[in-house]
């Protein structure tokens, strides 16, 4: 996309560029970094290209281009596709912007690998990202088993779309005649189902089972244990999806804690952890189901849930405290009735089967982000107006009826047009908004206009007469939610690009100082730097810290808007 191009270019410059070698640890030890940048730029600009064309645009030799492509493919940023064109097979290469954008999170990934899998985990992740040799430690095995690391097969370097096309072509060859529309649909459906099943399979690719040596007595009592070990021939890479799932779960748990209380957060966390095995993608609609009993068993005994909730005292006397199961049940009820829609009851068997409703939560979280952005930038009154516009349009039929009544005098055709316009969108007029918001008319008009120019609101014109005279048309406001999110996302990408550019500039402005500080003798003896230089260094570190923090927090917003 055009609006992510700049950001992608910045990221590649940062991760694979010339300056990065010194200050970041995530860069391949690759001699000609700037070539890689050129190749990536060309591919970002022009889309899919064969090797020769890339060389032409980047003004490099084909050999250099190929080396760059290898690196890019290794890092999972580039894909290739073999297309048969008449008599020969041409290989096209392309760059995946999503993958590049996901690289922003590498810092978080490293940190959380350390948290979840110990220090070893962090090292493992680091090594893998650098494409260096990895030792098969315990942490590594764990990570593979839980799918944080995923085996790479040869076909993974072909983009998903191409794989789908190839599969379809293979099926089509089997048919003797050209397919009918129905057959084609069936084939496509089968192919998609197969891909889904593979993705969702419970078998972890890359692990093999091995019998443990039975030790003495134990062999008589238990069956020989089966150990799972990592196969040594496979290559592995970081599985971004899995990390995203964890991040998303955390976002949900934090939201539950914010909205209700700490114990509700604990209950939610247990629910999500329990179902985590079966979660593959963040786009799913609901988590695996769980009952109250299971949750109460899973919560560690040390955590005290009672103090945070006040129950109806009819069931319990003063002496007996409510059991953990009952408490959990109460919390589940609370979570279910909360308007954010955390949980949903799937079944009434037993005490009820609960699932976390991701689809509802998704909408809610996105709305929350939008509302807080509007509130911070344009004031709480504007936020109020937006909320009114997006909710009231649907319920306020009286107003719609009033407008239609006025239109009786108009031509038949116009009434039809208006009826359609009003039915398909949630529209509302200025006067109604002003009455509902209890704001002065002038102020509402100004605020609505500001929001409109920024792209958060849209105006629907409904003419009263055949000529579109402004004095004789209705103007109705409404909120195009998806467009709002898209606008916000574009702005966020832009901001990220700005931050990165600024960071690079700050660093390059002090490059000489940095050079000096990275010298071997200076690292050993800090006193070689003068006071002033040390001060500058400190300032630089602070600056970079601020910019980094800003970047990561904005990335959090992007997660909610795009990845959840």
């Amino acid at each position, binding site marked *: 996309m055009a609006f992510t191009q700049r950001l992608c270019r910045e990221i590649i410059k940062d991760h694979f560029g010339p300056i990065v070698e010194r200050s970041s640890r995530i860069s391949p030890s690759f001699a000609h970094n700037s070539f890689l940048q050129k190749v990536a730029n060309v591919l970002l600009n022009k889309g899919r290209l064969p090797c020769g064309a890339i060389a032409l645009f980047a003004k490099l030799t084909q050999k250099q281009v190929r080396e760059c492509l290898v690196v890019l493919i290794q890092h999972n940023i580039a894909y290739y596709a073999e297309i048969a064109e008449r008599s020969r097979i041409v290989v096209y290469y392309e760059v995946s912007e999503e993958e590049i954008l996901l690289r922003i999170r590498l810092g978080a990934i490293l940190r959380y690998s350390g948290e979840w899998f110990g220090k070893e985990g962090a090292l493992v992740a680091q090594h893998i990202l650098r494409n260096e040799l990895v030792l098969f430690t315990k942490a590594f095995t764990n990570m593979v088993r839980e799918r944080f690391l995923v085996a790479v097969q040869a076909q993974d370097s072909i983009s998903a779309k191409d794989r789908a096309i190839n599969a379809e072509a293979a099926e089509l060859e089997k048919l003797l005649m050209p397919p009918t529309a129905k057959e084609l649909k069936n084939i496509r459906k089968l192919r998609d189902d197969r891909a889904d099943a593979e993705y969702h399979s419970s078998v972890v690719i890359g692990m093999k089972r091995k019998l443990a040596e039975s030790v003495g007595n134990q062999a008589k009592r238990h069956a020989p244990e089966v150990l799972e070990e990592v196969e040594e021939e496979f290559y592995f890479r970081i599985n971004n999806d899995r990390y995203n799932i964890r991040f998303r779960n955390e976002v949900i748990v934090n939201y539950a804690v914010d909205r209700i209380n700490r114990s509700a957060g604990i209950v939610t966390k247990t629910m999500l952890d329990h179902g985590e095995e079966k979660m593959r993608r963040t786009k799913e609609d609901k988590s695996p189901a769980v009952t109250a009993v299971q949750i109460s068993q899973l919560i560690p005994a040390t955590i005290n849930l009672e103090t945070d*909730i006040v129950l109806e005292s009819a069931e319990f006397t003063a002496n007996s405290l409510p059991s953990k199961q009952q408490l959990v049940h109460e919390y589940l009820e609370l979570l279910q009735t909360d308007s954010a829609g955390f949980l949903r009851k799937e079944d009434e068997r037993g005490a009820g089967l609960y699932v976390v409703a991701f689809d509802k939560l998704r909408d809610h979280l996105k709305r929350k982000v939008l509302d807080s952005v509007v509130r911070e930038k344009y004031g709480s009154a504007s936020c109020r107006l937006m909320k009114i516009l997006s909710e009231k349009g649907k319920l306020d039929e009286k107003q719609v009826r009033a407008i239609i009544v006025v239109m009786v005098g108009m031509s038949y055709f116009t009434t039809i047009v208006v009826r359609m316009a009003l039915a398909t969108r949630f529209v509302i007029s200025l006067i109604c908004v002003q009455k509902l918001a209890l704001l002065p008319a002038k102020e509402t008009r100004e605020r609505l206009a500001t929001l409109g120019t920024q792209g958060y609101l849209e105006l629907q014109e409904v003419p009263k007469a055949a000529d579109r005279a402004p004095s004789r048309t209705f103007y109705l406001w409404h909120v195009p939610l998806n467009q709002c999110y898209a606008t916000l996302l574009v702005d966020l990408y832009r901001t990220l690009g700005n931050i990165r550019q600024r960071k690079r500039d700050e660093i390059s402005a002090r490059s000489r100082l940095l050079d000096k500080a990275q010298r071997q003798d200076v690292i050993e003896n800090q006193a070689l730097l003068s006071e002033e230089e040390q001060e500058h260094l400190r300032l630089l570190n602070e600056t970079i810290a601020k910019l980094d923090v800003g970047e990561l927090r904005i990335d959090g917003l992007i997660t909610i808007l795009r990845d959840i």
Partner: protein
Amino acid sequence: MTSLEDEDAKTKRLSRHRQPSIMASKSDSQDDLDDPSSSSARPSKKSSLVVPPNLSDQEALFYKTAAKFTLGIREGQLESEIPEIPVVKIVEIINSLSKKGFLEILFIGNTKAFRIVKYEEAGKYRQVPDAHRHLSLSTQISRIASMEMETMMVYKQIKAAGNEGIWTKVLKHKTNLHQQVITRCLKALELKQMIKAIKNVKYPTRKMYMLYELSPSVEVTGGAWYTDQELDTEFIENVAKACYKFIYSRVRISLKIGAFDHRAVSSISFPRGQPDAVFAASYSGLPTATQIRRFILDSKISSIDLSLDDIIALLDVLIYDGKIEKRMPVFGGATGADPDWSDDEAVGDAEWRYKANRERKAGREESEPWTEVPCGRCPVFKFCTADGPINPSSCVYYQKWLEF
């Protein structure tokens, strides 16, 4: 009825040219069959029919005949019903009666019909201003009758507008009179204290008029939230804050506004004691709109009486601000703020309960990540590019932010 009024005006204008000699007919009222003084005692078809005084006997006869028809006597029926009076004379009678205000001219389909106005109601119909009530009924009626045609038309239009008042432009359109004529009539009526000018809160620049003794409708003044034609934001804020505090935890406010008394024993949205605690889902102590209203009225925060609708509107504003939520206490725990829950199924507005959302406590600040960075608040964000005149590398806002 507007078309009828129009026709009324047209007819009046036409009749002006015919110059009835009304006064002449008054003098020969020697047939005492319908003696006005005894007519009230005489039994007639409508026992309560009172023939107005000062009518000639022919007029009185016409009046009584027309009284038989609830929808008025039609043009075609004139000859059949009142054969005694020739048609020409009838025309004169109609003119004079309608001038005095005892006859209405309506349009039914294509034909005209003439309906009487009852004598007792003639006064009411006129909505005689209080200032004039001390005058005798006859004086009142004569006063009105002495108005010119145009003034009468203008007055009728303003009366028809009732509570809402009428705009000068609309008045001009409806009466088809010239602007100057209307201005003259309005001035005359205002002098006589029969109409007054009011300011509309929706369209402050319009000149609206309504009858003197009527009070403007809610639409025009804006209702409870408007003071002096202006939206009283401070007042709204105060009441809203009080509502929120009440919903959050029941607080009794002493009569001195701003001084808070001891807190009551039971809290509403969150249990006291524990800072982090919540109520179970089946908790039923959340307040309804009526309870909130009673609290507001008791605490006398607002000097004017706020109706239930007003309070509900205020609570809606708080919901849009995200401070409180609506809930329906339905068994099974369905949420009230669910948009799929159509209004038809709601039991009634008084049944909705309101729950406060948790306040952000210090330390758990809700700051927006994007606006923390200068780009989020930059006025030239859209203009900034990588290498243009405004770019991130030389951005002043970043400089200030990084130095902070």
